[in-house]
């Protein structure tokens, strides 16, 4: 299998991961689509550096979350994306209202978290183990536990403010 085919297969197998990271770090559909495409582009550019000794999904989470940090920095600007057919995108179908409502609630809670906390929370919500979070984020396993309990406290303060 050539590099291109291998890349396409990897993206298709992990596209949920990409869409979830994009949904977590953005708050509107246009930004979400743009971030998805930015992530896919960066994954393609850095595909050569992927080392087989790390899990593909761990590598993809790292790249996707790291791209999201710099994507946020750019702020509002002209968005140049490939149009995604809304009929094949379930984000825009019947569940849209429910999805958007839940995403809005989530965004409201995480708005005041810094990027460090956001990344850890995102992986926790994705049901990643402390070990996996530690590997993706680059901190020790015990620090993941400490961080998560602090995030919990911050969120409580945020909700009862």
């Amino acid at each position, binding site marked *: 299998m050539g590099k291109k085919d291998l890349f396409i297969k990897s993206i298709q197998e992990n596209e949920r991961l990409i869409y979830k990271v994009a949904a977590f770090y953005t708050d509107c559909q246009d930004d979400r689509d743009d971030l998805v495409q930015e992530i896919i582009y*960066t994954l393609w550019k850095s595909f050569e550096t992927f080392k087989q000794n790390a899990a593909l999904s761990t590598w993809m989470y790292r790249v996707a979350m790291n791209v999201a940090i710099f994507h946020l920095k750019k702020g509002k600007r002209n968005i140049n994306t490939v149009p995604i057919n809304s009929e094949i995108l379930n984000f825009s179908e019947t569940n849209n209202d429910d999805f958007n409502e839940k995403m809005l609630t989530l965004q409201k809670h995480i708005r005041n978290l810094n990027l460090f906390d956001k990344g850890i929370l995102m992986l926790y919500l994705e049901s990643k183990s402390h070990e996996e979070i530690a590997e993706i984020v680059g901190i020790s396993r015990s620090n993941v536990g400490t961080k998560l309990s602090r995030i919990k406290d911050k*969120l409580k303060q945020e909700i009862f403010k």
Partner: protein
Amino acid sequence: MELDDLKNDWESATNKAHKQNILTSKMIIKMTQKKYESKIRKIKYPELTGGIICILGLSFIVFNFNKLDTPFLQSISVVTIFLLLIIPALSYLSVISFPSANNFDKPYIDIIQNFAKQKLRFSKYQKVNAFLNYLLLVTIIILLPKFFSGKDITFAKSFWLFAFPIGYIFLIFFSKRVKKYYNNSLTQAGELLKEVEIYHK
């Protein structure tokens, strides 16, 4: 709301929203190509446009230097030339440290650290740049009448009578806004950097 409730909401929302495969091979290739093309455009045009405007301004001053007949106006034109060189250079320096695609697979904490440092540097550069732009505005106001109508406003009492107080008010207003905007940004980036450094392995 507990973290577990948030987790359940996240799972149910994202699972409902993304049940089937969306991306076809064709779409993936098209997205990559389109992004590549837009990157090339993004790098070229803003930098190029800013640079061209500054070079045009600079050339105009150099070619019309003989119209400036007093040492004061000549000194002002030298300062303007210097500003037209340094402002685009500073803008360029403040944005060049974007990590390359090869660095995006580093641990998240490394990229946050890089991001916060860059933000700090960017805010500092922007503060200096805002001040230099104000200075450029002043020097251009002094030079333009001489270039276009041959008038030397350095001897016009009315100009100094109005220009100084208005300029001073403008400077106070302008620097307060710049300070407020970039200080917030500096504080946030500084706090993030401090926290990241504590947890960095």
